[in-house]
């Protein structure tokens, strides 16, 4: 719940409570007045008392008022009701001594009836005989009956100037009530009104307090990042359980339809229910983007019970996009009052964010998984001592990573220009026959003169088809430097989705491995190593942004140089939602994962994914780091940790709010040359369970700059093992800080290169420079 919403609720609560206090004061005052009256009206001594001491339950209170009124007049026809907006709700209805089911009426301006007239005029009304007086009455009774009452006493229930409701007592005999009766009933009504108001306020305050508690509980519980199906079912179950609603369902909007994704309704569990946008209650909420309330169950439910229930459909929207609809069915039409509706609306806003976060998380996880899978293949290829081992490892990894059962790798033999099966997975006994009979590339559908970029779907040759136990296969031709080297064949599978990208990547790497094998035969082993390392770097580089933000009046640039091993540095630019004034906002990340090699790279992929999906819905860097820290700890299977500097930058205003989780302090150099460090505001991520982060803010003036870097820069050593050091970095930056970001960066890069000389870098060097030019 946003803090401002909490404040609004608190204010409403305080106003309601002070209103109740005022009424209590009034009640006390009118009780004194009553005491004075009781001297002369001793027969009512107890009536007001009993009403005022009645329990704070509206219906019980109405019952008590009925009993007390019965001591004054004949109450065989008795009604007491309260106004609620433009509706009039009965709390008690007695007809000829029998209780009748409670009803409510709407008060339309054209047919207000006597009750409506009383609300406007705030006056009581004595009717001695309807038959005689009907034309002289200030308003007409609304009912038409064969046996209408003849006389009546109508008394408004008033607190201050407001008419809360009406007490109506009627009789089938004329002249059943006197002016004196009316006066006595008015006394009772006066106290009844005060007591009713108290009960109503208390009821509302309690209801509101409970709702607020529930809202906060539900919001907290849905806030944990989880898969969408789990989130949906948690949403419906929590609402049903916590708000005691009859049934709760969630529809997700997909392909312009509403799909039932989760429900607490036993008859609907596991069923496919698809509605069009605009169809039924939920569909109308989706088309209008507004809450829809209907005094019956939706059309697709059992018509026998429909009429006795009510339904509210709440669209779950973010930025005017409807993500889904929560449909709540209630067996009590009155439970959807204004307050409840407001609570549901704010709940829907929470849910929207949770859904969006989960969606981001899911898609980014998928992306990270593909990258990680490819990285694994690349490492396997790089680590293999020979092409033979590489290919065998890759064919096995392919089945594991992609989830196919059968893989065949063919290599082209220069002697006969045919494809020979050299490596395979899952082919069983058929292999030896296949190995004995090479195929021509065209038999696999491969065009020998054209480089094909993507997979071909092809009919397999008979031998292969029987080994694969299917006729159709997917074939990637493997090319390097314009030369056809072989083919990768995988059984045809539907719905591989993004895993196809992994296969594309694997094919690419197989080509490289084969190409490397050729190179190795031709040139020195050293070159092959370089090439393999390049593959690793390429994949690592794919985690990094393609470009720096281009923003008028600013220059931003980045530098990234990898060491021999795959490392764990990364930086990121995340475009965030604009602020309230529509100003563009960016998240800027620089981070360093402890350690090197594949584990570090995988952990880096995880950290980057988490940061992105968490940052995108948050404006506070401290919150973001706190949450990412929790996720990393939840997810951590290793003892790796990551230092992160994260800032939310608003270029137009120059605001730069940051949190520093144990990362090397970025260097701030002001236009006039003063320098300072953006030091730690919390610990490195992935170490402490309850890590807290502080937030700092700087404002860029024209000519100010910030240099973000990793320890690879300051720790770069020369032949004498001397660090480059922060002092050198600061000195150089201070010397050139009036130039553009790119020049500042080049100056530092040149200086570190001069320092290091021929010494091989043992750590990645990463830098981001942000400068306000105008």
């Amino acid at each position, binding site marked *: 719940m946003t803090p401002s919403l909490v404040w609004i609720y608190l204010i409403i609560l305080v106003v309601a409570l002070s209103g109740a206090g005022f009424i209590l004061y009034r009640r006390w005052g009118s009780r004194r007045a009553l005491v004075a009256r009781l001297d002369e009206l001793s027969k009512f001594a107890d009536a007001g008392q009993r009403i005022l001491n009645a329990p704070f339950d509206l219906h019980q209170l109405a019952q008590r008022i009925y009993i007390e009124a019965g001591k004054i007049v004949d109450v065989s026809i008795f009604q007491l009701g309260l106004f609620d907006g433009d509706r009039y709700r009965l709390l008690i209805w007695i007809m000829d001594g029998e209780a009748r089911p409670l009803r409510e009426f709407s008060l339309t301006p054209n047919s207000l009836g006597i009750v409506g007239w009383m609300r406007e005029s705030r006056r009581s009304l004595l009717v001695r005989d309807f038959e005689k007086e009907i034309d002289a009455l200030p308003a007409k009774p609304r009912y038409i009956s064969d046996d209408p009452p003849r006389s009546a006493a109508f008394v408004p229930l008033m607190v201050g100037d407001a008419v809360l409701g009406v007490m109506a007592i009627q009789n089938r005999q004329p002249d059943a009530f006197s002016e004196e009766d009316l006066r006595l009933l008015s006394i009772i009504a006066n106290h009844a009104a005060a007591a009713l108001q108290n009960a109503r306020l208390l009821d509302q305050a309690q209801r509101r307090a409970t709702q607020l508690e529930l809202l906060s509980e539900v919001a907290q519980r849905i806030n944990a990042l989880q898969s969408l199906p789990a989130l949906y079912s948690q949403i419906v179950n929590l609402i049903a359980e916590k708000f005691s609603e009859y049934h709760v369902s969630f529809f997700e909007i997909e392909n312009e339809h509403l799909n039932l994704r989760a429900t607490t309704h036993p008859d609907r569990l596991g069923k496919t229910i698809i509605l069009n946008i605009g169809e039924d209650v939920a569909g109308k909420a989706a088309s209008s983007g507004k809450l829809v309330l209907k005094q019956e169950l939706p059309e697709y439910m059992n018509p026998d019970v429909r009429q006795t229930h009510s339904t509210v459909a709440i669209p779950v929207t973010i930025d005017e996009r409807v993500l889904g609809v929560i449909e709540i069915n209630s067996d009590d039409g009155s439970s959807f009052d204004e307050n409840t509706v407001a609570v549901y609306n704010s709940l829907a806003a929470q849910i929207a964010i949770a859904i969006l976060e989960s969606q981001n998380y899911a898609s980014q996880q998928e992306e990270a998984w593909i990258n990680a899978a490819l990285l694994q293949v690349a490492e396997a290829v790089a680590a293999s001592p020979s092409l033979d081992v590489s290919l065998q490892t890759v064919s096995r990894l392919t089945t594991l990573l992609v989830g196919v059962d059968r893989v065949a790798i063919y290599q082209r033999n220069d002697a006969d220009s045919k494809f020979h099966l050299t490596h395979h997975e899952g082919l069983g006994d058929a292999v030896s026959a296949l190995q004995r009979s090479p195929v021509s590339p065209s038999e696999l559908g491969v065009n020998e003169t054209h480089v094909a970029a993507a997979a071909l779907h092809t009919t397999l040759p008979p031998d292969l088809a029987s080994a694969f136990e299917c006729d159709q296969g997917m074939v990637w031709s493997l090319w390097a430097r314009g030369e056809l080297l072989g083919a990768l064949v995988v059984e045809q599978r539907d719905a591989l989705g993004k895993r196809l990208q992994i296969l594309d990547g694997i094919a690419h790497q197989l080509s490289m491995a084969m190409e490397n094998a050729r190179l190795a035969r031709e040139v020195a082993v050293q070159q092959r190593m370089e090439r393999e390392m390049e593959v690793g770097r390429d994949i690592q580089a794919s985690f990094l942004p393609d470009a720096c933000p281009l923003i008028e009046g600013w220059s931003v640039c980045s530098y990234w140089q990898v060491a021999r*091993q795959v490392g*764990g540095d990364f930086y990121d630019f995340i475009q965030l939602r604009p602020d309230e004034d529509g100003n563009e906002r960016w998240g800027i990340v620089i981070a*360093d*994962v*402890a*350690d*090197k090699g594949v584990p570090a790279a995988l952990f880096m992929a995880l950290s980057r994914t988490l940061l992105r999906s968490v940052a995108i819905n948050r404006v506070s860097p401290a919150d973001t780091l706190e949450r990412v820290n929790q996720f990393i700890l939840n997810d951590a299977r290793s*003892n*790796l*940790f990551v*230092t992160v500097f994260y800032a939310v930058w608003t270029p137009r205003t120059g605001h730069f709010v940051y949190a520093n*989780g*144990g*990362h*090397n*302090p970025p260097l701030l150099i002001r236009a006039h040359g003063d320098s300072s460090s953006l030091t*730690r505001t*919390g*610990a*490195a991520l992935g*170490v*402490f369970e309850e890590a807290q982060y502080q937030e700092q803010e700087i404002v860029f003036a024209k000519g100010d700059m910030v240099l973000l870097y990793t*320890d690879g820069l300051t*720790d770069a050593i020369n032949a004498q*093992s001397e660090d480059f050091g922060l002092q050198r970095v600061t000195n150089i930056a201070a010397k050139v800080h009036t130039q553009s970001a790119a020049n500042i960066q080049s100056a530092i890069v040149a200086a570190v290169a001069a320092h290091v000389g021929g010494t091989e870098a*043992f*750590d990645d060097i990463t830098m981001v420079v942000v400068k306000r030019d105008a």
Partner: protein
Amino acid sequence: MEITTRDYKRVSVVRVTGRIDSSTAPQFEEKLNDHIKNGHTHLVLEMDGADYLSSAGVRILISTQKTLKGKGGEVALAQPSPRVKEVLELAGLGPLFHIYDKTEAAVGEA
């Protein structure tokens, strides 16, 4: 990087000198793991001669601490070099370890 060990009654003092970086970290980790495998639960790392501690080295300190805490023991740091202190301070990891100015004090506390 060089590692030497002195065993006391209740604690082993592991003295590490030189650079702990990504190339030497695996040896460092192996040495500490040997101690843990041999049933030592209280270790003191004497680090006045540690010129350099990379994040890979810090990772090993953290994982060793986690493992030992799980066994009711701990790893303490003694006589850390300014460099070691700076690295831990920078990452906010100081609170994870007891740090002693003198090895004798660390041994006495264990």
